[in-house]
């Protein structure tokens, strides 16, 4: 390499060796900088400068935002990818309530529950309670560990003390009772058996708050099987329900809704649907869906059922039984419809009286329904409660004959009518244990609490119906120092090991079929992955042997069903709160009642004419308080005037008035459980005599999310027809809006042709939602599913009174009115026994959205896929969009609902534990911004990504909205309207036509309509007309 000869100069100064340059050459900054003075000492000025800088820097540093650490996994579990949800099949079990589910977890946290479509029992449906149960997991009021007399104790000490005491009970040959609600888990039952083997004085007492013991007893007497049959509503063309709320609360509503809704789907090729009669006192969800509904008093229940029996018997040529009347409205019609659909009909009764159920069995038997709509092959196990045994247990307890009581996940002190007696007599029992998850009413009356895991933390199995098995698996590590109750029993039995191994072994020995090919591990993994296992059973008509003594039953009925001609009280369960087990769940408390749309309360429902008589008025939820006196016990309750309530009856919901469920539930409403009566030794949910009602001068406001009851005859909102009309013309009931313009008065144009709007072109996807008004039962599972999916806050009773509930999807419930269309004030008043329409309403994702044009900051805009989008970060909260929304579906954040003590009932946003339920894919909205249904845009994005990774376009399987997937009636269908193969395109028969650069879609489905079409918003949400299976449009009064 050549020697470098070139020299580079920094500047002319260096070249000339300028003395000024040489002087500073060694310094950091060769040129003169005016820092410091020549002596190198600091001046006062410098001191002040540095001081000023220091103070400013220190104060700036103090302003730094708090550091929030996002810590990566040290050892990343191979199944968890941050940001990617995992799904686990599991089983929801709550007493006898069952649902096969798929749990969505994110980073190890269960955040959402979906139905398991593989299940032959629930078929992918869910209910509001199932949807909400994920929040109960994160309830701060669950016990953090075992308790003895309310104080913390270690599991070891607890086991030691309990075992010692059990052994001492055993040594004196004492009596032990295990009290449980219906137990669907075969492995757990086996554990009880083993416990019994160890402690022979043990017996298991099963009771259910909502008892079906009457059916069990009747079936035992009639068919020799103490079980519930399998009801197949999907095969029934005529359904008669005598007070059974099978779509709402009766036995297995999710399953029944799935089956029932199959008979309610009509289209031009299938112009048939079931006809549903309902005879009941309160207006139940099921009654609201009935084609013919007849209000009857509970004291007439016996006459109705005998009347129906005799009507059928006379057609069948059988001998009639004594008593009964047939002049109840629609009863004869029901009988003739039943008879003409012999073998394809179904009569169910919600009665808990074996005599009534025997007569119902007799009717079904005459109709030949056994073996078709009713079957014992896959009999159901949902309700095994034995009211007599439970009463016997309480009597024994009072007699001091019991030495130890173990309550397995049940709360009889609260939800059994003799709960107070029970609590009192428990004091004398030496050993009392419960496995409650919280210090509830029963837990507070016992010595030891051995809290069970939440079901989402547990292993378990279930057999809801004969041969249909399913598994539960934990989806999160236990949050607290709780222990699976089965393991507690194993510990007290002296059995080693954990329940998981026990369960697996149990399945190896009992469920694993000999014929399986791939070994047990494969069978186990497959069952666990699917969540279910269906064992084959032999089909036989095991109801062939019948021994139905209807005459004897009629004799008891005649004795028992007498009113005193005064008011009669009918107790009922609400769809959301049920028996009150999940009462501390704010989602359920704030779920609008399916009928009254009331939240956070129970109240007396009274018919309009009775209200007039008592001088009760309700306006916008402000109502009189009444003193209700039964058995010399008086309580003050608010009243709601309920259209459809049978005259002379009042209704009152159970499941309220909790005292020890937690902050959310305590003190909400009134506990009516002590008023559950006894009839033929069974719980009887009506009070037919001695009911005194007195209006007092206090007023109360029941929080209701809907206060206007009728749809004012507006056919642009609700479009309906009867089946008869539909059979003649599939577009019956649908309004055809046409516009005539001055340009051509002869020719009318469709609404699409007269518009100021340019229209949109959706090149890739065009999302749409179809809602079948005929399928929607109003069960509101979608409301809760949406709440869980989209982090919708709970606002509390007062804010609902202020009309500020936040639900993105609401179920509008409309009563019909008797008034003519001109009588506007008359139209506001619902009929005495109205027809009911449920209309799910959420953002309609208008193609010409009124909200989009008015936002000053363009915070709500239109996507290229037809969505109306909301940019929360951009919203400044002028609320103009909400005002200009003709559907009133926009929700404003009036306050800060998260991290705000004022809204501490909003559990999912106000404590660290509750926040674990939040869906990380959906922003928690801040105060002052507008929000609304996004058509689950996060699910759409996820589905699109899945499809993109596989280099294909999305299909129906990739994306479903939270509401649509939760719906047990399949009333909502979501999909891509650009895809001719999608379900929605096929159902709506979408036809595309192109014009001036945009694509127009027309829906050839005759029933399809959009709400308030004439406003020209052109929504992407389409409704199908409601069809009632009526002979004529007679008023239903």
């Amino acid at each position, binding site marked *: 390499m050549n020697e470098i000869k070139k020299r580079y100069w920094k500047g002319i100064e260096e070249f000339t060796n300028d003395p000024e340059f040489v002087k500073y050459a060694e310094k950091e900054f060769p040129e003169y900088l005016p820092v410091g003075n020549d002596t190198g000492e600091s001046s006062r000025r410098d001191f002040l400068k540095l001081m000023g800088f220091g103070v400013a820097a220190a104060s700036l540093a103090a302003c730094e935002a708090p550091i929030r650490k996002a810590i990566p996994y040290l050892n990343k579990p191979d199944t968890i990818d941050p940001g990617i949800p995992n799904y686990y099949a599991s089983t929801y079990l709550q007493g006898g309530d069952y649902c096969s589910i798929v749990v969505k977890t994110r980073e190890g946290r269960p955040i959402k529950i979906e139905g398991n479509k593989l299940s032959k029992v629930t078929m992918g449906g869910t209910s509001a309670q199932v949807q909400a149960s994920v929040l109960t997991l994160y309830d701060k009021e669950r016990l953090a560990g075992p308790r003895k007399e309310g104080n913390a104790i270690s599991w070891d000490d607890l086991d030691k003390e309990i075992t010692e005491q059990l052994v001492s009970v055993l040594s004196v040959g004492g009596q032990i009772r295990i009290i449980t609600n219906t137990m669907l888990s075969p492995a757990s039952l086996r554990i009880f058996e083993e416990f019994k083997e160890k402690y022979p004085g043990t017996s298991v007492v099963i009771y259910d708050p909502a008892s079906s013991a009457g059916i069990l007893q009747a079936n035992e007497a009639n068919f020799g099987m103490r079980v519930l049959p399998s009801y197949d509503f999907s095969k029934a063309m005529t359904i008669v329900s005598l007070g059974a709320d099978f779509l709402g609360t009766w036995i297995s509503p999710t399953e029944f809704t799935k089956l029932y809704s199959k008979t309610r789907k009509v289209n031009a090729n299938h112009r048939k649907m079931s006809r549903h009669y309902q005879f009941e006192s309160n207006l139940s969800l099921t009654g609201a869906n009935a084609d013919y509904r007849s209000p009857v008093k509970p004291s007439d229940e016996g006459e109705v059922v005998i009347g129906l029996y005799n009507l059928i018997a006379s057609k069948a040529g059988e001998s009639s039984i004594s008593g009964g009347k047939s002049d109840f409205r629609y009863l004869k019609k029901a009988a003739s419809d039943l008879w003409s659909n012999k073998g394809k009909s179904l009569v169910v009764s919600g009665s808990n009286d074996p005599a009534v159920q025997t007569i119902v069995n007799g009717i079904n038997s005459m109709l030949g329904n056994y073996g078709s709509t009713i079957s014992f092959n896959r009999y159901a196990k949902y309700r095994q409660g034995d009211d007599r045994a439970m009463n016997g247990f309480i009597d024994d307890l009072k007699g001091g004959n019991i030495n130890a009581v173990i309550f397995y996940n049940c709360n009889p002190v609260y939800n059994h009518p003799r709960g107070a007696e029970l609590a009192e007599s428990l004091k004398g029992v030496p050993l009392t244990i419960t496995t409650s998850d919280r210090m509830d009413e029963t837990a507070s009356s016992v010595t030891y609490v051995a809290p069970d895991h939440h079901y989402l933390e547990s292993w378990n199995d279930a057999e809801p119906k004969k041969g249909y098995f399913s598994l539960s698996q934990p989806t999160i590590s236990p949050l607290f120092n709780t222990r699976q109750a089965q393991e507690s029993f194993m510990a007290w039995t002296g059995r080693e090991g954990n329940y998981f191994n026990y369960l697996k072994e149990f399945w190896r020995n009992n469920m694993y079929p000999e014929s399986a090919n791939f070994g047990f591990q494969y069978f186990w993994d497959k069952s666990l992955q699917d969540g279910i296992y269906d064992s084959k059973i032999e089909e036989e008509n095991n109801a062939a042997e019948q021994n139905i003594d209807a005459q004897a039953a009629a004799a008891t009925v005649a004795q028992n069903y007498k009113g005193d001609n005064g008011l009669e009280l009918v107790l009922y369960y609400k769809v959301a709160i049920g028996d009150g087990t999940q009462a501390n769940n704010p989602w359920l408390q704030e779920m609008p009642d399916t009928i009254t749309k009331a939240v956070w309360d129970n109240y007396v429902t009274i018919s309009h004419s009775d209200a007039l008589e008592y001088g009760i008025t309700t306006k*916008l939820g402000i109502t009189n308080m009444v003193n209700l006196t039964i058995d010399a016990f008086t309580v003050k309750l608010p009243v709601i005037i309920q259209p459809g309530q049978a005259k002379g009856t009042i209704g009152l919901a159970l499941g309220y008035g909790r005292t020890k469920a937690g902050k959310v539930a305590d003190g909400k409403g009134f506990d009516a459980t002590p008023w559950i009566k006894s009839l033929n030794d069974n719980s009887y949910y009506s009070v037919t005599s001695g009911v005194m009602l007195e209006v007092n001068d206090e007023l109360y406001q029941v929080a209701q999310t*809907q*206060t*206007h009851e*009728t*749809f*004012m005859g*507006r056919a*642009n*909102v609700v479009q309906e027809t009867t089946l008869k009309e539909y059979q003649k013309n599939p577009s019956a009931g649908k309004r055809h809006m046409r516009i005539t313009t001055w340009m051509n008065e002869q020719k009318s144009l469709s609404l699409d042709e007269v518009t100021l709007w340019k229209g949109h072109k959706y090149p890739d996807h065009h999302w749409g939602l179809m809602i079948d008004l005929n399928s929607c039962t109003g069960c509101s599972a979608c409301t809760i599913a949406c709440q869980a999916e989209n982090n919708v806050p709970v606002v509390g009773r007062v*804010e609902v009174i*202020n*009309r*500020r*509930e936040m639900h993105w999807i*609401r179920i*509008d*419930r*409309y009563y019909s009115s008797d008034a003519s269309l001109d009588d*506007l*004030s008359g139209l506001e008043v619902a009929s005495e026994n109205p027809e009911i329409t449920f*209309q799910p*309403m959420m953002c309609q994702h208008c193609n010409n959205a*009124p909200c989009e*044009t*008015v*936002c*000053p*900051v*363009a915070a709500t805009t239109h996507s290229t896929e037809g969505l109306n989008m909301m940019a929360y970060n*951009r*919203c*400044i*909260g*002028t*609320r*103009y969009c*909400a*005002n*200009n929304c*003709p*559907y*009133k579906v*926009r*929700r*404003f*954040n*009036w*306050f*800060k609902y998260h991290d705000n003590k004022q809204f501490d009932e909003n559990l999912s946003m106000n404590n660290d534990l509750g926040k674990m339920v939040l869906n990380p894919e959906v922003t928690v909205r*801040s*105060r*002052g*911004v*507008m929000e609304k249904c996004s058509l689950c845009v996060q699910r759409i994005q996820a589905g699109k990504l899945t499809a993109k990774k596989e280099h294909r376009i999305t299909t129906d399987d990739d994306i479903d909205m939270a509401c649509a997937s939760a719906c047990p009636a399949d009333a909502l269908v979501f999909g891509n309207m650009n895809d001719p193969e999608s379900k929605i395109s096929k159902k709506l028969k979408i036809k595309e036509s192109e014009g001036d650069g945009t694509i127009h879609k027309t829906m050839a489905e005759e029933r399809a309509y959009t*709400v*308030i079409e*004439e*406003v020209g*918003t052109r929504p992407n949400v389409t409704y199908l007309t409601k069809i009632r299976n009526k002979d004529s449009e007679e008023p239903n009064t």
Partner: protein
Amino acid sequence: MEVVSSIRTPLITGGKSVADVSDDICRQVEGAPSRSWMLAIAVSSSFLIVGAYAVSVLLWEGIGVWGLNKTVGWAWDITNFVWWVGIGHAGTLISAILLLFRQKWRMGINRAAEAMTIFAVICAAMFPMFHMGRLWVGFYWALPLPNTFGSLWVNFNSPLLWDVFAISTYFAVSLVFWYIGLIPDFATIRDRAKNQISKNIYGVLSFGWMGGAKNWARYESVSLILAGIATPLVLSVHTIVSMDFATSVIPGWHTTIFPPYFVSGAIFSGFAMVLTLLIITRRVFHLEDYITVGHIELMNIIIIVTGSIVGIAYITEFFIAWYSQVPAEQYAFINRATGPYWWAYWTMMTCNVLSPQLFWIKKIRTNIAATFIMSIVINIGMWFERFVIIVTSLHRDYIPSSWAMFYPTRYDVGVYMFSFGFFFTAFLLFAKFFPVVNMAEVKSIIKGYSEK
């Protein structure tokens, strides 16, 4: 050179000389505050303080402290906004349009009317601010400012954005117009001032006005130019405000009649407010000779005219609802008159349509007490007009399930009180420290009649 008929009645009574004018008007500014002024400012500032509490709660807690709900998203906030904007209109009408039409009678009242405009517009602008869910970003996001949020721009389709432009333009023009008019008078006060502080303050305020011929020539031409700019604003501002409603789809809002209807309503209420203020001012400050019964009568005539226009507009809405055969539209109007808010509707009808008709009677329209009462009645009526339009249209629109009622809370009232407190405090400070009558202009008309 103006020629004035000898039979024309004098605009300024009491045979005032030029010096009298200066004395009479400057007396308020120079003297110690009167007892009645102290009392008035005590009342109005206590309103302001109570209102400030309500405003701070509103801003701290959220819009939820108001009685609004999912169905009625605007109520008192926008009612107050429209009401205050409307009130402002009279000032501009008096100073701009009447200037262009050479209506000299305006000179006695235009200063106070313009001040009222300024303060009313400030009060009006408060409400769109306070009603925002997120004021802390909204106050500048609503402006088309270049930003670093990407290409994030305001939505020029939104009538609310038009409002932003309309109100800010209106405020700016009104303020400049008012201030230009004040300059010669500030100079007068400066020249008369005996104490150095006043001299300095009014010296700065008067922008070095020398009173030279050139000064006056420029003053005249600037006034004329500003009047020309302000005149279309009288029509445009409330037209745009009305478009907040007219361009929407809500029955009762979606009406093409709104622009003229709103503008006449604005002038109607504005004159009523001018009357309220001036009747008090002339009494308190003894300005009976400058603000005469003649002024009051002329303003009352404008009130009859605009009140009748408004009345016709109300009836036209009903006719169109019937004629349209749109059921939702028809229901909206039947509900207005007979629904749960019938009382608001009939208050509006009585106050706005029936009561101004009394002014056909000369005795009433020249009676100061009657005029004062009427001016308040009209402002109540006009407040209810906006309430009726906003709340009764929203509370029952298309989907009956969402129908709801609106009940105001104490914070609705409190924030309204705040605007009143601000308005009257500001007006009283103006009346004390600024010349309430345009001395320079009034001096030009004291000899405005033929008797020399």
